[in-house]
């Protein structure tokens, strides 16, 4: 009887570990996820693009956790009744364009709603225009 209980407990513990570990590498469709999280801009000015991302994040109420120009990566957090953590990266897409990718978590859940990313890029589009044209 004791052996049986020990076996059941082991199974329960192992399956709990397995389901916790699954979260480490879980993702949706990689192609779909990348597509909705990425927007390409006709510029090679990495600094202005990153400054536009910063302006967008501040407009949306984020505080910057980390910002690295060399790695072109910015991570920021927004606190309301909820918590959103977002990372934005900028990479060369080809010899005349940059790709901006954003991924975010709402509380403990990855944001997978394409409309949320569309909204973010709509604000970024405006900031890119203002930064590139140096408009206040």
């Amino acid at each position, binding site marked *: 009887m004791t052996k049986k209980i020990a076996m059941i407990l082991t199974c329960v513990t192992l399956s709990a570990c397995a389901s916790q570990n699954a979260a480490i590498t879980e993702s949706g469709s990689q192609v779909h996820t990348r597509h909705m999280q990425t927007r390409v801009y006709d510029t090679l000015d990495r600094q202005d693009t990153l400054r536009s991302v910063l302006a967008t994040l501040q*407009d949306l109420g984020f505080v*910057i956790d980390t910002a690295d120009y060399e790695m072109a990566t910015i991570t920021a957090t927004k606190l309301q009744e909820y918590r959103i953590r977002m990372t934005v990266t900028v990479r060369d897409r080809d010899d005349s364009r940059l790709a901006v990718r954003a991924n975010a978590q709402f509380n403990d859940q990855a944001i997978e709603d394409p409309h949320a990313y569309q909204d973010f890029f709509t604000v970024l589009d405006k900031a890119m225009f203002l930064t590139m044209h140096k408009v206040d």
Partner: protein
Amino acid sequence: MPRDVFRLPESSMAVRSMQTRVYTASDDTAVMSASAAALQDMGYAIDEVEHALGVISASKRADATNQMQAFGSLTLDSMKCAFSFFLACDGKNYGEIDDVQDIRLTLISMPQQGDDVAVRITIQKMIYDKRGRLSAQATVTDPDVYDAMFAKLSKAVFLEVEGI
């Protein structure tokens, strides 16, 4: 998830204006140095600096107790304790009052046309109760806070730029 988390509220221009000041300085390094010094004056620790992007992030822990809230909670706990003939003296209400707050902010300096440098600050706070539980978190939107912070910053920038 609320639908509007990545949408600009109608008040965004007013908020941006409240959080921004423009200084005349030949380079943004002087403005960043002065800003870091002003933040240190206010007791902040600098968590992140990225000079190429004009970013400074800083934080500090501060007292968040409110005397009125503490008095009310102690009174409630005492009444509960007395009316239960000392069976419910758990101090629950006092345990739920605000104790400390973590304040974190980002300051970004952005060169403008000519010799102007715009500085924008965003501030958040997380409040914890006496039991150490998070009781509230929010973005600070009180204009007086930003006015007070920029008053100190403006003085620091003036001293830095003038080399005093």
